[in-house]
């Protein structure tokens, strides 16, 4: 799905809702089945043999079955229920030292062999423009293995009616609590991915993700003013158990807001969203200036994503994304110096594709590399990047970090962001402790508007809920807040991070990159953190 399509589907745009362009819509029962591993292995061997025979020095095959379910509602009605399935094979080869890729939905031996031949032909044709041959970091074949997201309840097996009933309940509660309008959506993803390569790996993975966003809107007809509050849940690498709303997942925050960790009470959040949207209509507008910001994990994940996750992607640093997403200020010379202070001593940021419950958690990446954890910023210093097999040698690494991903069997895999997270502080500090020392500050909960430049220096972030802090106490809910940062200055202004009791995840289901654009899902963990002296602007305008 293009990000553009999602933006239109998720928001009330000028036109009708789009049918997600993911693949074939299918009946519900199809979503609970799987393709036999033996069939996939046989087909993979057809491609591996055909590639070798055609002169490829390396080949990997991804046989993918991508299942998605969408339940889309507003107010008292279900607008759309869509089941989609997309099945096919992507074949990537190296020939003449150059990459080639082709994909097919034809499951016959001939069809796969033909696509393999196309991939080799493309590699050979493009080798004319290649300045240096591809260098792959070695990967030891793992033989036949499997991995699955550790879920309790497979969301694809939960009846559609149960999901529609939950969303209707959510909407009814929001309307009763004072919302004029409410939207709630459920997105479910199951990626059944089989990977095989000439290195001797045959990896079968079953990956699950879930997201349940909502938005309540309140209107003041007299003034023509309207305000919305989006849900405070996170998309997760979990099953349907995420929506159980267990008390253990409830996190009561200073100021009266409630956030969630690994279990989400959607009805409770909808009621709060309705009330807080109404409160926004009357909340005083922020006075622009410098404030100390206390940022909740439901907000901070997006700042981490944009200002650390993207700039430490090595393909951006090298210029491969220069024409679209951009390059990076975190250049190789800064890393080589071993002294570049990306942040204060409080800031340690790590990449990790093994944390259970996260969107990026898998056993192996899309080029057969076992996933791992490593530091990007250690005690404030830039120490590493995110790389895949053909980039590892640039950093002098002997292995890939396992960051390769494709959003479909039909897309070529490339470097995508790992889960990138702020390490919790070592001292025992809770959120109340963090707030009590702040003289003039703002406490921000939930992510809002976001924008960052093409080298990841200048960013601006909004939020969902803003609370003024005066002399160590939260005074009131305020509005029209956005803060602007210069990335290294912002992270160097970090004076404290709460301990691991407050560590929670946020994340993006549709992070866009590449041309043609591909989406990827990624989580970012943190505890609440404080940043001193940040520039806050007022976003209220008048149209006369």
């Amino acid at each position, binding site marked *: 799905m293009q990000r553009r399509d999602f933006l239109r589907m998720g928001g*009330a745009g000028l036109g*009708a809702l789009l049918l997600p362009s993911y693949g074939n819509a299918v009946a519900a029962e199809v979503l609970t089945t799987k393709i036999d591993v033996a069939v996939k292995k046989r087909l993979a061997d057809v491609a591996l043999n055909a590639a070798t025979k055609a002169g490829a020095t390396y080949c990997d095959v991804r046989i993918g079955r991508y299942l998605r379910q969408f339940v889309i509602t507003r107010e008292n009605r279900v607008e759309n229920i869509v089941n989609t399935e997309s099945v096919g094979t992507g074949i990537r080869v190296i020939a003449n030292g150059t990459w080639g890729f082709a994909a097919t939905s034809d499951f016959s031996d001939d069809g796969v062999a033909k696509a393999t031949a196309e991939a080799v032909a493309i590699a050979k044709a493009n080798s004319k423009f290649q300045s240096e041959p591809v260098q792959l970091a070695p990967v030891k074949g793992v033989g036949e293995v499997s991995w699955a997201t550790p879920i309790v309840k497979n969301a694809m097996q939960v009846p559609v009616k149960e999901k529609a009933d939950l969303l209707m309940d959510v909407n009814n509660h929001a309307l009763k609590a004072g919302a*004029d309008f409410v939207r709630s959506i459920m997105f479910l993803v199951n990626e059944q991915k089989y990977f095989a390569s000439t290195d001797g790996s045959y990896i079968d993975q079953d990956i699950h993700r879930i997201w349940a966003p909502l938005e309540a809107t309140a209107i003041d007809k007299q003034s023509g003013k309207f305000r919305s509050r989006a849900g405070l849940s996170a998309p997760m690498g979990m099953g349907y158990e995420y929506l159980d709303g267990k008390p253990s997942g409830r996190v009561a925050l200073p100021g009266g807001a409630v956030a969630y960790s690994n279990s989400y009470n959607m009805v409770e959040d909808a009621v709060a969203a309705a009330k807080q949207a109404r409160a926004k209509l009357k909340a005083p507008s922020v006075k622009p200036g410098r404030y100390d910001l206390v940022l909740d994990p439901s907000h901070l994940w997006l700042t981490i994503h944009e200002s650390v996750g993207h700039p430490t992607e090595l393909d951006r640093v090298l210029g491969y994304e220069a024409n679209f997403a951009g390059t990076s200020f975190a250049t190789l010379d800064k890393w080589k110096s071993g002294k570049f202070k990306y942040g204060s001593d409080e800031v340690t940021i790590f990449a990790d594709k093994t944390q259970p419950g996260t969107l990026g958690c898998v056993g192996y990446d899309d080029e057969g590399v076992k996933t791992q954890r490593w530091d990007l910023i250690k005690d404030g210093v830039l120490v590493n990047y995110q790389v895949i097999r053909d980039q590892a040698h640039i950093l002098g690494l002997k292995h890939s970090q396992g960051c390769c991903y494709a959003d479909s069997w039909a897309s070529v895999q490339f470097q995508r962001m790992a889960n990138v997270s702020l390490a919790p502080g070592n001292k025992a500090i809770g959120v109340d402790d963090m707030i009590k020392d702040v003289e003039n500050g703002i406490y921000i909960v939930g992510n809002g*508007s976001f*924008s960052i430049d093409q080298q990841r220096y200048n960013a601006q972030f909004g939020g969902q809920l803003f609370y003024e802090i005066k002399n160590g106490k939260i005074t009131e809910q305020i509005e029209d807040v956005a803060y602007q940062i210069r990335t290294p200055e912002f992270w160097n202004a970090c004076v404290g991070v709460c301990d691991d009791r407050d560590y929670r995840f946020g994340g993006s289901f549709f992070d866009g990159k590449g041309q043609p654009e591909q989406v990827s899902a990624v989580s970012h963990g943190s505890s609440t953190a404080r940043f001193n002296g940040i520039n806050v602007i007022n976003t209220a305008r008048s149209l006369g």
Partner: protein
Amino acid sequence: MIFTESDAKALLDKVIKMSKADQCTASLNGSTEGNIRFARNSVSTSGLVHNAELVIEVAYGKRVGTATVNQFDDASLLRGVRRAEELAKLAPENPEFMPAIDKQKYVATDTFRKSTAAITPAYRASVAAACIEPCKKDKLVAAGFLLDGQRMSAIANSKGNFGYQVETSSDFTCTVRTADGTGSGWVGRNVADVDDFHPSSEIQIAMQKARDSSGARALEPGRYTVVLEPAATIGLLARMMNGFDARQADEGRSFLTKKGGGNKLGEQVFDERVSIYADPADPAAPVIPWDEDGLPREKVTIVDKGVVKYLQYSRYWAKLKKQQALGMPGNIIMLGGDKSTMDLVKSTKKGILVTRTWYIRMVDPQTVLLTGLTRDGTFYIENGELKYPIKNFRFNESPVIMLNNVEEFGKPERVSDVESPFLMVIPPMKLREFTFSSLSDAV
């Protein structure tokens, strides 16, 4: 995969006959798209994708189900129809259900160009070479993308409606950077007919901007007169056009909502020099003459001399409000003058020229306040001349306010953007008091 009109009609007729539901709508979309991507003066990826899919939507009463298939033998078609019927039976009733549309008359639009349909892998490679070679020679670094293709659309329903059309397009973008990373330029060109695309001259624009933008100076953020190239405004206008939905305005959540209730249809919302219309047959930007619901696109005046003349009604909302539902526009055409971007610069005493904008996001939908940044060629204008390159700015500005601060419009140009659902023909704009809120160090 591109079906002929008779093949498409035969297939859709067959599907509709297979359905036992109260009504059936089917659409067949096929495409052949090729691309080439390059970076660091080297080709990085290229591909060719053939695709076709059939969407079958059926209804029993007010229950709707949708299924899609990409295999077209009789057994697959039947399976698709039955799946849609199963989903329809499982779905809750939609209180806003609308029956299938009646037989429509679609205007003819000229969306197919043989030359574009005939693009080969060798041609794509030649475009990459036409960018890479001169950059290498001048010690500049090119990164770019060409996406071209033909798309076929056919629709039919159980009420006898039918439409068939093929369109072609070619979209090119290229960013050129100086080897030391201190300068960056950009060029983009979207054409219907690839014979109108000349990569060797286009690349010179990006190369020149890369060289000229090196060594940028910092200006204080604030309000400036700006000259915005069309590529700098398409992302801003696209987001504003989303506010032209009648239901959103009537419900009280659009910049076109009136205080006390209702919408601003018929009100002066923009400067009187602002006139915007949509026309599927516009020769500069023809589009398929129906929208996703099969509703016919017609020529509509959206804004006339600053007055809002058109809001988009869904079929349900139109019925409720006793209005006519027309197809959602596929293009946006804005009137302008005869001057080039550089002519607008010439008449500017002090101002800023913006090549393009980037990472535009909604800050406040109430006022359509948007934030984003300038990129790949931002220059200070003094006494009608580009004086020196300046560092990029973040802006916080509303297109509604922009279109009330008009100094002059230039000659409209065809432009597209990955985040705009509309193909646009819009002028370069000279505007006063455009709000830049902070500096960016990004090049």
